[in-house]
């Protein structure tokens, strides 16, 4: 009865209680798939911050993997297979399972009390509401315990192996090679031979059980993808960001200093950077976000590559200091890993609603550079770029990512850093070559308007800087009216001049047509997929996905002019579309969603189609 189907891509989601090891299980599945040459994208979905009581909706933890034999950009809209370890996991995830999809459930967990806790009126395994899915009911707890009966371990520990039992089954269904996970276990449990044996046995037992299972109607095979040759690794956005900074500091031959205060979902950048002291990285966990940025500024004044990281509410607190950094004209990178707002909002959910804040969250006319990463592995590149622009242009740079790409992982072709990420030319002076008598700290490069960087320790270049307006020539405090205008103009011109130092905007698709999609930041994967689908349907649609947000690449205005209609999909109430319309005087429309979730390809496809129909 069981059939083998060859498919292009598959989406699997593991879901269970916080304590069920779902992140681990998902990671193993995705590593294995990557090793087997598939392209992948993953989406870990933690519960809200506090571990809720077992078995509740609030306590559900999930991990979704999309793997395929073609390029994969997103973790997938709907799932082909759902592995539900308890009723709450089923309740939360069923709506995303494709009709006809495979549902593997742990029937041992479907006790009356757990069913009730999940909010089901009746047992869904019996109520008929699972009709239309390929349901595989397995008493995972008991079968795992049974499979491990020979092993000398307490029952609780044996039960804990059920995630690998399920993983074994899933590996069988998708013709995955267990080798990678078996090896990983050997390393992980090297000090616990009993645990090693138990977990390995559980996985093998699961795979074996699946093989014999009558219910199993189909298995699926996903060939390896045609992928650029090279060495690959998986990386999530926050790690990628951290590494980008480490590399930028190396390229600039400067020490790296992070001043930060923990906040979800940005904390992992702090955690990651705190590991690499050998790279001359100092991390300073400050008493609050204000002290975080101020300490970073202090380090920047002392000659470090200065970074501060946070999320929306914390970025708000940094506004005054960002203004000071603008006024100082000093290099500083501010990372905002965006989450759902306003206020504390939805700390563990993703959103793009801090774009306005990045542009305008300060008093006065206070322009700075803004960049945004488009996907987990692009965080490396944009962190490097943010650092490069900060150092080359003596300016604070805001780098926007979001909870979705920060936590999401995807394969990353390890770049040739010696070729492409090797040399940042900052503005730090060599005091021995300066005519100290006639030097002023505020003297500028005539073309880029960028000032020099002199730091304490350099003899003869002692100077004083403050947040009061400065005289254009001497850098001293000035209340002169004309000077304030001049300084305001130069601050703006300096940022605009950065457009000479960034790549032109890439356009995907024809250079003219019916619909231009303008997207930015972490929505790239879904937008790209939706656009490709439309292009395949023969629609005249093109895409510019912005990563340099302020200033924008010089050709953006030109590109826009060649399309009949412009649509700006965003995970906010309409921020980029507002900026685009104000800046380019066009009548772009927005497609907006604020549900704390990334875009689905399907909803974008529908929105773009509708926009095309209205052209």
């Amino acid at each position, binding site marked *: 009865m069981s059939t083998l189907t060859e498919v292009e891509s598959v989406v699997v989601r593991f879901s269970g209680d916080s304590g069920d090891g779902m992140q681990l299980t998902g990671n193993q599945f995705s*590593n294995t798939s*990557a090793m087997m*040459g598939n392209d992948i994208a993953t989406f870990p979905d933690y519960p809200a911050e506090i571990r809720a009581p077992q078995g509740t909706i609030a306590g559900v933890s999930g991990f979704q993997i999309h793997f395929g034999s073609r390029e994969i950009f997103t973790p997938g809209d709907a799932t082909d297979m759902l592995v539900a370890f308890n009723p709450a996991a089923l309740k939360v995830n069923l709506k995303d399972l494709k009709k006809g999809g495979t549902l593997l459930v742990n029937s041992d967990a479907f006790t009356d009390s757990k069913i009730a806790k999940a909010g089901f009126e009746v047992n869904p395994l019996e109520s008929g509401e699972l009709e239309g899915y390929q349901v595989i009911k397995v008493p995972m707890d008991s079968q795992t315990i049974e499979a491990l009966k020979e092993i000398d371990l307490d029952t609780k520990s044996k039960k804990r192996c059920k995630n690998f039992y399920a993983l074994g089954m899933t590996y069988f269904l998708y013709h995955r090679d267990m080798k*990678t996970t078996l090896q*990983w276990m050997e390393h992980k449990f090297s000090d616990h031979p009993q645990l090693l044996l138990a977990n390995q046995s559980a996985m093998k037992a699961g795979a074996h059980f699946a093989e014999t299972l009558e219910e199993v109607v189909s298995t699926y095979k996903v060939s390896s993808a045609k*992928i*650029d*040759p*090279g*060495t*690959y*690794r*998986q990386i999530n956005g926050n790690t990628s960001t951290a*590494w980008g900074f*480490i*590399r930028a500091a*190396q390229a600039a031959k400067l020490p790296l*200093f992070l001043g930060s205060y923990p906040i979800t979902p940005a904390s992992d950048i702090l955690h990651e950077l705190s590991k*690499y*002291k*050998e*790279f*001359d990285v*100092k991390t*300073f966990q*400050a*008493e*609050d976000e*204000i*002290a975080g940025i*101020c*300490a*970073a*500024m*202090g*380090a*920047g*004044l*002392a*000659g*470090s590559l*200065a970074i501060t990281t946070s999320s929306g509410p914390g970025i708000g607190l940094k506004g005054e*200091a960002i203004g*000071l950094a603008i006024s100082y004209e000093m290099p500083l990178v501010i990372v905002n890993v965006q989450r759902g707002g306003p206020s504390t909002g939805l700390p563990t959910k993703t959103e793009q609603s801090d774009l306005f804040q990045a542009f305008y969250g300060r008093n006065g006319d206070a322009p700075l550079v803004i960049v945004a990463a488009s996907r987990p592995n692009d965080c490396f590149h944009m962190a490097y770029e943010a650092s490069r622009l900060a150092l080359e242009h003596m300016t604070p740079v805001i780098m926007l990512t979001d909870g979705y790409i920060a936590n999401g992982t995807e394969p990353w072709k*390890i*770049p040739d*850093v010696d070729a492409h990420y090797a040399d940042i030319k900052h503005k730090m002076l060599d005091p021995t070559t300066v005519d100290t008598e006639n030097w002023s700290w505020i003297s500028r490069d005539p073309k880029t308007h960028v000032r020099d960087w002199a*730091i*304490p*320790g350099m*003899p*003869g*270049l*002692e*100077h*004083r*800087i403050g*947040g*009061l307006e400065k005289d254009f020539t001497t850098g*001293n405090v000035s209340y002169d009216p004309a000077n304030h205008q001049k300084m305001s103009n130069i601050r703006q011109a300096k940022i605009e001049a950065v457009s000479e130092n960034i790549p032109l905007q890439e356009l995907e698709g024809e250079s003219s047509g019916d619909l231009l999609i303008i997207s930015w930041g972490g929505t790239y994967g879904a937008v790209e997929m939706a656009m490709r689908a439309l292009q395949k349907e023969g629609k005249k649609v093109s895409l510019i996905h912005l990563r340099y947000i302020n200033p924008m690449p010089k050709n953006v205005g030109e590109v826009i002019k060649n399309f009949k209609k412009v649509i700006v999909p965003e995970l906010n109430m309409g921020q980029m579309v507002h900026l685009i319309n104000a800046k380019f005087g066009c009548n772009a429309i927005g497609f907006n969603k604020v549900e704390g979730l990334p875009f689905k390809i399907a909803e974008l496809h529908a929105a773009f189609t509708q926009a095309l129909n209205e052209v």
Partner: protein
Amino acid sequence: MSKNTELTYTKKDFSSDQEVKWCPGCGDYAILSAIQTALTQIGRKREEIVFVSGIGCSSRFPYYMNTYGYHTIHGRAPAVASGLKTANPSLSVWVITGDGDSLSIGGNHLIHAIRRNIDMNIVLFNNEIYGLTKGQYSPTTQQGQITKSTPYGSLDRPFSPAKLAFGASATFIARTLDTDSKHMQEVMLEAESHRGTSFIEIYQNCVIFNDGCHSSYVDKQSREDHSIVLTHGKPMIFGSEIKKGIILDHLTPKVVELGETYTEGDCLIHDKTNEMLASLLVAMDANKAMPKLYGVLYAVNDVIYNEQVAAQVAEVKAKKGPADFHKLLNSGDTWHIE
């Protein structure tokens, strides 16, 4: 940093070309002069000295110093200085702040810098008023005082800066006064030589908005009867005509007249390294009925944040060997596509 004894600066070497813009008669002038003079003796090169300030009349200080100087934002100087010193521990870092700047908006950064014991000197100009914004009460303003924002008298209980610093686990607490240039210089030199955060409060007169707020214990005539200059190892005695001393009555420090009943030998001996004595002194000092304390109240050694950071970096480097970015990139699971 070791002292460089070959430097021969004069006070003028530390004056910038900027016109000093405090009100005529402001106590800040005397402090500026004392610090400029003290700097000629610390044995540090001018370019290695950094002044960081917040916002306030006092915080204009860095503009007048011919060193590196950063006039930052209100209350945040200790945080900026913390990063600066941690990034480059070889600098001599001075934070200049006012009672509003450091105890009002900047209170948290102050206590955290002190807690971490970052090696810098925090000099608080206490004029018990917001000078720059023209005369509102501050966290050190006396209760009942009429100010711009308290037309019917201030209701807040004031902080005692020394007591607060002690509560935040300070390793060095000193106080001095704008009318005694020599004492100021001595205190600055001792503060600079202390390793860890040195917290120095200076009684400073604001002639415009709070003139005479400290007069009983800073004016030459009355000073000796209302204050004690603490000296390590010396008994706590004071008074111009009638000699007085501090004794401990059970646990409570008390002022007694020296003569028949009490002699110098009965008085408390100052020991700046004694934590318990310090705890009594700062509590006593907050009591308005007691004489004010000048000099170094407390000075002990403890681990220093910026040193620990540097040590940890060195340790990790020693253990892990030279940093290799390629190794990092290739760490963990990787796979190869042909």
